């Protein structure tokens, strides 16, 4: 395979972003769709190819998985957005800018997962903040503007810790190349401190406790396609940063630190899910819970790492579908509260039906692949920490599962009050495809 294939996701999304700045009607939508589909094809070619390392790229199996997941959710989000942006009343800026930022956002994520440089990994993840901030604020409401500011401030301050951590890692490894750092066998106190600081920083971006506070605000107030791409791929890209730095020195302290943060994220998210009034915030906390589970998988390694990858892939498809569907609901009901949505299955049967399965997939119900991922992680927890820790974690995951499905079930199956109808659009099938992917993906890729 030629090396240029690795440049294509970055170049295509950059070109699409630049062309989207033109204000001709329909150009931004068209070029973004073409670019995202082309990138998806490239990502499949990359996935089927060999691992590749040179001075610019570090493409291992995990990078390939991340490139594919980003490309898939980027494509689904662009296609869904084409219909969705028409429903945004008085957007803060012209919708072609929405597509431009969406393409630049995808670019920064591709750059982060492909680079062979710890410093540029940080630059890429910080760049996702710059490129995504205005996407959150597009609706121009005071809540979304406030959520955007909180996002910029909290995430940027958190990432400063990663920056400091990266510098400390450099201080001991004497190189920022990921390929060099991974083979350096560095294990001094400075490199461990650097890795711990990096975990805190990237954890902020991944919505890991206790730096998660921006996450429900942003997911709750961003337009639904933006919430979908945030939840589906931005959070995993930040977790990918944690995985990269932790592999430099996978010591007991670092593993324990990651495990505790993951465990607390699951616990806090599960408890907060029980008291939610707004459905998008509920789904946001569900994402936090999933990221916590994935972080536990990263901490334990081995088959738990495989489990974490399965969780990340399936969560990306399932949760993005959940957010697309909540966009459909919000457009029709004009109500963000759980109590305000009733009788979804009768009024919007397609959306209600899809949401029922999407939330099951996102929360780890069998037969969806998330369940298999969680089982792999649990078996590793039992073998390392024993039954009691696994049981406590299981209780929190059950609380999260029951909360998400109870509230969603109430929205879907309660008696109808308002008279609203399903919107007729082909893009309605995007969430359905994503739900099917969250089931079949495990058979399509060889993890």
């Amino acid at each position: 395979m030629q090396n240029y294939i690795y440049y294509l996701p970055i170049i295509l999304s950059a070109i699409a972003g630049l062309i989207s700045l033109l204000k001709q009607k329909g150009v931004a939508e068209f070029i973004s769709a073409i670019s995202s589909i082309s990138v998806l094809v490239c990502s499949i070619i990359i996935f089927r190819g060999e691992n590749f390392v040179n001075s610019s790229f570090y493409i291992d199996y995990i990078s390939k998985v991340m490139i594919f997941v980003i490309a898939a959710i980027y494509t689904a989000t662009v296609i869904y957005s084409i219909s969705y942006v028409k429903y945004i009343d008085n957007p803060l800026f012209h919708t072609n800018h929405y597509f431009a930022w969406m393409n630049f956002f995808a670019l920064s994520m591709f750059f982060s997962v492909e680079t062979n440089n710890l410093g540029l990994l940080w630059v890429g993840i910080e760049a996702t903040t710059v490129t995504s901030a205005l996407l959150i604020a597009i609706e121009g409401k005071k809540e979304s503007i406030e959520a955007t500011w909180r996002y910029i401030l909290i995430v940027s301050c958190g990432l400063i810790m990663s920056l400091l951590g990266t510098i400390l890692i450099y201080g001991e490894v004497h190189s920022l190349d990921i390929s060099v750092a991974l083979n350096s066998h560095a294990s001094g106190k400075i490199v461990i401190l650097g890795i711990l600081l990096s975990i805190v920083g990237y954890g902020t971006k991944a919505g890991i406790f206790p730096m998660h506070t921006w996450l429900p605000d942003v997911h709750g107030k961003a337009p639904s396609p933006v919430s979908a791409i945030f939840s589906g791929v931005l959070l995993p890209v930040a977790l990918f940063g944690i995985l990269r730095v932790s592999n430099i020195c996978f010591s007991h302290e670092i593993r324990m630190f990651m495990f505790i943060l993951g465990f607390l994220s699951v616990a806090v998210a599960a408890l907060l899910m029980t008291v939610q009034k707004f459905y998008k915030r509920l789904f946001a906390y569900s994402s936090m819970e999933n990221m916590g589970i994935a972080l536990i998988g990263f901490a334990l390694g081995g088959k738990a790492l495989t489990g974490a990858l399965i969780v990340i892939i399936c969560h990306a498809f399932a949760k993005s579908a959940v957010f697309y569907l909540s966009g459909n609901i919000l457009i029709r009901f004009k109500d963000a509260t759980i109590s305000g949505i009733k009788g979804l299955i009768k009024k919007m049967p397609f959306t209600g039906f899809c949401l029922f399965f999407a939330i099951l997939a996102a929360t780890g119900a069998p037969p969806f692949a998330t369940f298999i991922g969680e089982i792999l992680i649990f078996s590793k927890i039992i073998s390392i920490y024993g039954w009691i820790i696994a049981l406590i974690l299981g209780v929190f995951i059950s609380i999260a599962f029951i909360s998400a499905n109870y509230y969603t079930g109430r929205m879907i199956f309660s008696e109808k009050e308002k008279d609203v109808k399903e919107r007729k659009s082909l893009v309605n099938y995007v969430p359905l495809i994503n739900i099917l992917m969250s089931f079949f993906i495990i058979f399509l890729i060889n993890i």
Partner: protein
Amino acid sequence: MDFEKLFLLFTSFQILLVVFIQWQVYIKKNIITFAISSFILAIYLFFLGSAKGESSLIFIAILTIIVRTIFIPRFMIVKLTKEHWRVRESAPTMGTASGIICSILIVILCYIVYTFTLYNYLKVRAGALPLAMILQGLFLIISKRNTFVQLIGYMIMENGVLLFGASLFPNLPFIFEAGIILDLLGIVMISGIINKLRENYVPDTLEEIEELKG
């Protein structure tokens, strides 16, 4: 040349400027103080780069002057919507005197902790001061409500990291440091837009927004 003494001198001055920003209520004066702080940082980087023969540090010094001393402060002043000499911190979360005391205490505490921990590995006693600057910047963010001051707090944190990295590891790759500055530029520009919108839509004395609770 005794680099450690030079480092101590420059970072101590930076710390004093942060304390001044903590004390100051007028936003424009805070922005100008930040510009002065960045200019001093650039001068230090220039000295360091010249003395150690690291051309990348000289480039970073030039970039720091262009971006942090000229462009960002100018951009922020333009983005202040009201008459900019009147804009002031209206509702800090902490009084001015207690804020200054806390900021100084952070420096002392950081120095003590550093001396007993990281100093054993890094062997540069003044290395505590950039780390203290990072924490002072963080404290500035949580002790003030005005978004421009919070943004200055973030940039002080970044200046602290740059000072730490350049002094202790002067051969850090240029592309990394240039990337940091570019990112900072992006963050400030986006924040400027959001802050302007926030000034119009969201008052400083904001009641808790129902949809952003819990």
